[in-house]
């Protein structure tokens, strides 16, 4: 899976929980889930569970700790897909 496809599959998940819908339009790798998209911290769990379902991977606690940006999410998904 290339990066573009990965972002295309990740974006709808993030969009569901983003409270700043305007910021969604300009999602890029540097986008911060909490600071930019105003995702409620309790909903970060939903983002992680949705990502696990969408990509059929398991995100361990250590990976979850740093999953605060689009870039980190991509790295984690790529890593988990590789070792699947």
């Amino acid at each position, binding site marked *: 899976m290339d990066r573009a496809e990965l972002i295309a599959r990740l974006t709808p998940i993030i969009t569901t929980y983003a409270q700043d819908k305007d910021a969604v339009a300009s999602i890029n790798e540097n986008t911060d889930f909490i600071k930019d998209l105003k995702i*409620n911290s309790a*909903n*970060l*769990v*939903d983002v992680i*569970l949705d990502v*696990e379902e969408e990509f059929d991977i398991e995100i361990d*606690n250590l990976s979850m*700790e740093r*999953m605060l940006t689009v870039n980190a999410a991509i790295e984690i998904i790529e890593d988990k897909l590789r070792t699947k």
Partner: protein
Amino acid sequence: MIGNDIVDLLQAEIDSNWKRKGYLDKIFNTEEQFMITSGIHPSMIIWLLWSMKESAYKIYSREAKLREFAPLKLQCNNLIIHNNTATGNVSYENELYYTESVFDEHYIHTIASTQLEELEKVEIKITGHALFDYKKTKPASVSHHGAYLALVYL
């Protein structure tokens, strides 16, 4: 240093489905899940424990200038609930935070500090969301969620 967190229970109910498979496992350890499932108000305990973790995390992240999403590393202990108040503590890395919470059917509010005495000294103001320019009043800690704004003054 003081931290605080408010949970608007109606907003939490709208935004979060804690019954979702895997949800509780990502946030709460075995002991915490036991506290949640052994009572008659699981959602109340969920958001109480959550606000304890959040208020402690806010102090840690400010002091350490570090952000991470590690709810399982924040461990709630010694929770004692009385009518509409609760006390407890949260351990995180090598720190211990004392917490005090108040709640009713609409919200749960928790303050946290590394010093128990500090919790006694603070003044807490809970209002509707940003009805005034609260920044001018120089609160030590601010939390907003849903319809509520919580301000804590030292």
